[in-house]
């Protein structure tokens, strides 16, 4: 018995009942499409969350937050020092389990202006060079701040590419990549010199689209070729990337001297930092590292616990949980569809062997063994299921396209080969199982009854 012929005969059988086979396959098509589609959506979610996580500084970043003084220390609230450079220095010196301590003095309601163009940056803060490692920034042009800038409170800044796009023009609009280093811009009316610019942060999907757009414009060379794309990229790729791209950093001291020391809204100079971000040396040692940091802080704060740590553990856990739930529900839907598909196939195979009793009898008269007949029926069932699976994989591409159109987010569904292979294997298994009963029935047919059957 040769498998190739068996498959060929199976295909002929399926082809001779095109419509019936199509209807039968539908269950499997749905099952596979939902399996592949679901896992693509989940993969998209996963990617989106991971990318956003990295954009926000990675999983090992811990925020040192302020908190209201606890109830039992209420009477000490006046003496609560808030988070200051004292804490930063102390942590850097005395908490060796911390890798990075990055202070930030955020400036609220800043408007960046150049000529007639202006923008409110996603983040504007005075920082020290640690911020690069903390928020995973990479410079594209120029340099970051050095001790001299810090010391002199120089009026220099480093900007994200989103700021450049607004103030100087985006490359996809004006056609050239502008290097803004050395240019002057105004921060709330004070002149600052740009000394550096970060690279563009974007999701993998956006990166691909940009590459494609670039290649397209190259092949379609010429200024007036086709309608120009009007939509900017600013908001594309989700909030996390947008906000990271529209950063403006100035030296910490500059923020203090030029914006804060003159007094905040109520006119009092405020040396408190708005953020202290820390990174631990080793995620495994997160607990002891936080304990160490807490001890140091308790000292500098005279035992007043007006601070707390916020790790990304919760986010990571909730991401994992969401993904697990989505997987489960997707799996259940796909499982039910495949089950229904399997029942459909079994049903149609039973009908098919009833119609073919004479043919089966003839084959047995010609020397087919029970095993030959069994294999033939199972192969047919599997071929039916696999055709359904292949159609389903095709359908899942449509499904994913449809989902993208329906809700264009940064969590673009990604069809993974693993999901495809898995669903095809599942379908084959469904085909085998669905074919078993009909195949046994066919194999057991007595050749003589099969021949007499009218």
């Amino acid at each position, binding site marked *: *018995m*040769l498998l190739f012929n068996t498959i060929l005969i199976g295909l002929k059988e399926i082809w001779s009942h095109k419509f019936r086979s199509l209807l039968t396959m539908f269950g499997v098509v749905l099952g596979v499409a939902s399996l592949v589609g679901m896992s693509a959506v989940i993969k998209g979610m996963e990617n989106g969350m991971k990318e956003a996580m990295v954009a926000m500084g990675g999983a090992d970043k811990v925020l040192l937050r302020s908190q209201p003084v606890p109830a039992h220390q209420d009477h000490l609230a006046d003496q609560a020092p808030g988070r200051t450079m004292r804490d930063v220095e102390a942590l850097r010196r005395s908490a060796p389990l911390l890798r990075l301590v990055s202070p930030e003095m955020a400036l609220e309601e800043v408007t960046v202006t150049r000529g007639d163009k202006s923008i409110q940056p996603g983040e504007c803060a005075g920082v020290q060079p640690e911020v690069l490692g903390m928020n995973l920034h990479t410079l594209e042009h120029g340099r970051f701040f050095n001790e001299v800038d810090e010391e002199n409170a120089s009026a220099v800044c480093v900007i994200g590419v989103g700021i450049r796009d607004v103030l100087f023009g985006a490359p996809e609009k004006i056609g050239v990549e502008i290097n803004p280093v050395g240019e002057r811009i105004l921060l709330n009316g004070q002149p600052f010199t740009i000394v550096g610019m970060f690279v563009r942060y974007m999701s993998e999907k956006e990166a691909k689209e940009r590459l494609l757009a670039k290649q397209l414009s190259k092949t379609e060379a010429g200024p007036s070729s086709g309608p120009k794309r009007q939509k900017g990229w600013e908001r594309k790729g989700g909030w996390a990337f947008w906000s990271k791209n529209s950063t403006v950093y100035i030296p910490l001291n500059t923020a203090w001297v030029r914006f804060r020391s003159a007094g905040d809204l109520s006119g009092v100079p405020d040396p408190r930092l708005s953020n202290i971000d820390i990174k631990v040396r080793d995620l495994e040692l997160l607990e002891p590292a936080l304990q160490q940091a807490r001890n140091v802080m308790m000292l500098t704060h005279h035992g007043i616990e007006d601070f707390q740590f916020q790790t990304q553990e919760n986010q990571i856990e909730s991401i994992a949980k969401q993904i697990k739930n989505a997987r489960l529900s997707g799996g259940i839907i796909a499982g039910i569809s495949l089950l229904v598909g399997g029942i459909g196939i079994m049903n149609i195979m039973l009908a098919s062997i009833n119609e073919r009793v004479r*043919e089966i009898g*003839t084959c047995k*008269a*010609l*020397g087919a063994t029970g095993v*030959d007949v069994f294999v033939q029926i199972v192969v047919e069932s599997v071929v039916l299921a696999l055709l359904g699976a292949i159609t389903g994989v095709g359908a899942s591409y449509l499904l994913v396209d449809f989902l993208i159109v329906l809700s264009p987010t940064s969590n673009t569904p990604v069809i993974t080969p693993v999901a495809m292979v898995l669903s095809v294997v599942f379908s084959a298994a469904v085909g085998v199982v669905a074919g078993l009963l009909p195949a046994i029935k066919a194999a057991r047919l007595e*050749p003589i009854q099969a021949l007499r059957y009218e």
Partner: protein
Amino acid sequence: MALLELRNISKIYHLGGEEIRALDDVSLDIDAGEFVSIIGPSGSGKSTLMHILGCLDSPSLGSIKLDGTEIGKATQRELAQIRNRKIGFVFQFFNLLPKLNVVQNVELPMIYSGVGGRERRERSVRSLELVELGHRLRSRPNQLSGGQQQRVAIARALVNDPRIILADEPTGNLDTHTGEVILALFRRLSEEGRTVILVTHNPEIAAVTPRKIEIRNGKVATKLGEKLAGLERRPTPVS
């Protein structure tokens, strides 16, 4: 030793307490190379006998030996192999597989005996040329006339080079002229040394064969002209 030896074969059906003896204590021998017809009225048990001869059916009582092997003791698998290698069937209603074309139908027995693709194709084409259908390889059964379909069935029966050809009313569905063509084919096969057994209720057809076995009510009635036929038979040595 005869090629086929039937001893006290009975086939009994039970229908609601009633006992139907489709075959009743049949004993007979068929030698290698014989050209035999089994004749009798409708319902007499001819088809039942042929099915038992062809290992498609097993008797309720009695024993058959084919080529020295006791069939009653063979497993299903062995029976399938015997049907495949030693016996070629031709049916009244042709029993071609409608979804396969002519060559593919003829290739079928060789698929079950595991002959490789190229040899299979060559042998079926040769077999089809033998029945003068070498030019209709790609036709579907329903595109052929009844006579052509029966010739395809004969080509299929021959393709594994079996020693025995069993045909149940092979001309029952054909007009007289076509029937004669088919009969001539069987005669030629017999002359080539094969054992050919024809089942028919038509005495004219039975007249073609040297030996006739007449069945009535499940019993062998007379063995008309058996001795004579036996003498007239060409002594063909069959290997």
